[in-house]
């Protein structure tokens, strides 16, 4: 396997390929390579929306080669938090990059006018996208499919109007229904006049020992398909957790005013599955098929005329645009998810920004003048849909502030105690206890998926755990996920890729690693990410925890400031940062 980086300069309309064997040998791929390239390409203090800011897409040695290794890592400077931007997407992107022969792509500069990048094997072209600037993210895909080669094996990633307008939590849609969702990659695309990127390739991968490869492949495939380790994702999907979290009192409701939703049973995963689910599909290379697609059928006249929209759903959007906004129906939630899809907004941030605004209006920190008469009230689906559009259009200062995220809006209008962000990123759907809060706060991208603190809380509910053990679990998880995200496998497949299976699958593609090697790689990756965060001004000791977390009962009971502070102290000590 040649380990190549493709560089694209939009300003100079140039591209070139560099062989970076040593980079991949030391840092594996995915997030490991991503953070190192970010350090190389993004000088201290770079404006994340300037031409100098890089976009880095990277895959790892297992992508396209083994089942469920389907993710691509995006690394950038986040316009939302001002420090590390890191996001993962499935779909067909990792496969397309693998067969185009580029393990990493670095995009810099700013095109003179709206453009898109077309990569076919070694050929890279920067093409005019003027006529599709302003077109929604889904339609952009439809248009480019007719123009670009590689049906069935290509990937088309693109932004909607939110990314063009520089909404700080705009996402990049990947092959429809999948996304680089978090931390504002869409805005970085928009700032470069980059509407889309299409990739396809016809290369193949030669493995050193086909027998060994087949044996490992079969073992991993069987674990994914014929054992229970991925059953949850195969059946109802992640949304199965709505009922579970609601019952545990860990489902954030109405901006965390409550931790269970009295109408929760109406928006449970089971309801979506029975009433709306029409099909499931997979990211290329994954036999699970966890992507759940609902049909949203709405009448547009009294004469039985309907429009049908196909909308993908998961746990997090049902939380952020559902319980978190007091939306009581699956239909209402699907309508809001669809609005975010078209605009190209991150559903999680969008929901949390709206829930802050709803409470701020209720508490009279803002008035009708700011909202322009839009009723921002719990369960007001139409009002929320309008507000999402207004965030993108930003017709006044208030909506322009919302477009910068809840942290920014609350700093301006007040209500910081219930602006639900950690490290500047809108929080995910878990009020499970202290490990979830601490985990998202210390995680390098302030995501629940950094270290799954919510899972540690749930373990601790079943079997009490002292704070030190919880912190140790967070660190262990954070480090091991650094390796996982360098392969780049889907985090849903953690049960398939045991440490031994990781070592065997790497061995089958000619990369020999020991347990110690992987452990030290995980630690090194984490430290490099923090170096970047600190360089860009992140200070863990000054990080804000919204008071609301301590006022609403969690799945572990009331969480106290003291416990969270103690965990942070232990954390710093264990990381060697005292």
């Amino acid at each position, binding site marked *: 396997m040649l380990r190549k980086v493709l560089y694209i300069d939009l300003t100079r309309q140039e591209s070139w390929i560099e062989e970076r064997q040593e980079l991949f040998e030391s840092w594996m791929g995915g997030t490991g390579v991503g953070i190192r390239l970010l350090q190389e390409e993004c000088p201290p203090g770079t404006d994340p929306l300037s031409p100098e800011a890089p976009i880095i897409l990277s895959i790892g040695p297992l992508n*396209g*080669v083994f*089942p469920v290794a389907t993710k691509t890592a995006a690394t950038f400077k986040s316009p939302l938090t001002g420090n590390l931007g890191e996001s993962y997407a499935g*779909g*067909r992107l990792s*496969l397309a990059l693998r*067969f185009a022969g580029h393990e990493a792509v670095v995009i810099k500069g700013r095109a003179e006018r709206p453009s898109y990048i077309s990569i076919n094997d070694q050929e890279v072209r920067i093409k005019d996208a003027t006529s599709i600037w302003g077109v929604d993210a*889904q339609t952009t*895909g*439809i248009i480019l*499919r007719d123009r670009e080669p590689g*049906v*069935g*094996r290509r990937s*088309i990633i693109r932004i909607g109007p939110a990314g063009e307008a520089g909404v700080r939590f705009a996402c990049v849609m990947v*092959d*429809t*229904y999948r996304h680089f969702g978090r931390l504002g990659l869409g805005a970085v695309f928009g700032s470069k006049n980059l509407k889309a990127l299409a990739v396809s390739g*016809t*290369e*193949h*991968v*030669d*493995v050193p020992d*086909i027998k060994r*490869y*087949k044996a490992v*492949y079969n073992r991993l*495939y069987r674990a994914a*398909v014929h054992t229970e380790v991925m059953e949850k994702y195969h059946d109802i999907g992640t949304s199965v957790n709505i009922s579970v979290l609601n019952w545990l009192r860990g489902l954030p409701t109405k901006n965390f005013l409550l931790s269970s939703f009295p109408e929760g049973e109406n928006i449970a995963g089971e309801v979506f599955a029975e009433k709306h689910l029409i099909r*499931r*599909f*997979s*990211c*290329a*290379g*994954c*036999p*699970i*098929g966890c992507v759940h697609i609902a049909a949203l059928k709405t009448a547009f006249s009294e004469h039985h005329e309907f429009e049908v929209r*196909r909308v993908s759903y998961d746990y997090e959007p049902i939380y952020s645009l559902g319980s978190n906004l007091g939306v009581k129906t699956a239909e209402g939630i699907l309508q809001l998810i669809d609005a975010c899809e078209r605009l190209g907004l991150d559903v999680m941030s969008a929901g949390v920004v709206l829930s802050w605004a709803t409470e701020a209006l209720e508490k009279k920190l803002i008035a009708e003048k700011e909202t322009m008469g839009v009723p921002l009230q719990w369960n007001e689906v139409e009002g929320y849909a309008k507000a999402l559009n207004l965030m993108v259009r930003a017709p006044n200062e208030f909506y322009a502030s919302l477009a910068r995220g809840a942290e920014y809006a609350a700093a301006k209008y007040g209500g910081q105690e219930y602006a639900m962000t950690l490290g500047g990123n809108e929080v995910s759907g878990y009020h499970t206890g202290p490990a979830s809060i601490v985990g998202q706060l210390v995680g390098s991208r302030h995501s629940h998926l950094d270290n799954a603190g919510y899972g540690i809380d749930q373990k601790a509910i079943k079997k009490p755990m002292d704070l030190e053990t919880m912190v140790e679990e967070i660190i262990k998880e954070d480090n091991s996920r650094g390796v996982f995200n360098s392969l780049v496998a889907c985090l849903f497949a953690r049960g398939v890729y045991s440490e031994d299976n990781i070592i065997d699958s790497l061995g089958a593609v000619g990369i020999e690693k020991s347990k110690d090697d992987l452990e030290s790689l995980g630690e090194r990756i984490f430290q490099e990410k923090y170096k970047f965060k600190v360089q860009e001004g992140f200070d863990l000791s000054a990080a804000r925890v919204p008071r609301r977390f301590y006022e609403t009962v969690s799945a572990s009971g009331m969480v106290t400031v003291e416990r969270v502070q103690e965990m942070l102290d232990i954390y710093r000590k264990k990381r060697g940062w005292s």
Partner: protein
Amino acid sequence: MGDKQAGAIEKVQARAVAVHVAEDSTLAARPKMRRRLKVAHPERCIGCLGCMFACSRIRSGTVSLDSSAIKVRTQGGIEGDYRVVVCRACRDPPCARACPTGALEKKAGGMVVFHKDLCTGCGSCEKACLVGAIALGKEKMPIKCIHCGSCVEFCPHGVLEIEEIALEGE
């Protein structure tokens, strides 16, 4: 076809699973059968491409989409329905008829075999197949389904099946 290649194919066929055998298979009067890959439930496809990887991996020992004889196509991106294209094992195979050099040869009984040494890479077979089941690969050689069924066990949703059909003339 060289003996070595024929042997390899037989071995693959012997290993394949999920054979739908006719109920009267134990009867002595049973006609001679050949195997045919069938897209039994195309609407159940989730687009994982596991079959394509299996085809490349098991038949040609490589990690590739382009050396797969089975193709999973999208129609209107992943929003649309998947189309699974496999060789139909035609009774009167247009690919063999179109082949000007005899590289694709219809055997007695109906099987089409490929003689690599006779192939000039002209692509007539590709043009002749209406369903698009045969196509030239990177080496300008047709990639042809041998109905071995290796893909079947890597389809998690039972889209693919191997069925047995009577040999011609039986």
